[in-house]
């Protein structure tokens, strides 16, 4: 039984290396028949570049996804803290009867934008 298993394993290894050799020979033939010239690449090179582009895009997508979520969370924390500060100031204003200057146009637009 052991011998059978070893034999089977050898067959798979041979099949694997045969496939690698076929791939290598095909690519070699294409590269030889159609060498890369300026701006014109052979099919094998293009195939490799295509898979490189796809994996690079996947990597950038994974990098980009968490950024939007993190930004949203940070912005909402800033807004929440600002509104707390504004409430505090209004409370203080009441208690001290101090009249604060009204918001300037620029500050109003900024507050609007934050809201």
């Amino acid at each position, binding site marked *: 039984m052991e011998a059978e298993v070893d034999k089977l394993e050898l067959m798979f290894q041979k099949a694997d290396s045969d496939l690698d050799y076929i791939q290598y020979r095909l690519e070699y033939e294409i590269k030889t028949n159609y060498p890369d010239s300026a701006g014109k690449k052979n099919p094998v090179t293009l195939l490799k570049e295509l898979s490189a582009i*796809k994996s690079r895009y996947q990597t950038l*997508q994974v990098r980009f996804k968490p950024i939007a979520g993190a930004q949203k969370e940070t912005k909402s924390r*800033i807004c929440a803290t600002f509104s707390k500060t504004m409430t505090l100031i209004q409370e203080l204003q009441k208690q001290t009867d101090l009249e604060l200057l009204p918001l300037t146009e620029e*500050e109003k637009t900024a*507050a609007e*934008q934050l809201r």
Partner: protein
Amino acid sequence: TLKDEVNIILDKASLESQQSIGFIKATKILMK
């Protein structure tokens, strides 16, 4: 296609950048 997908995500990223720039400016004004 892949190109379309990249264009879509690029537009989205640029839009978000613009929004963040505006947000940071507004925050700085209110912090003065």
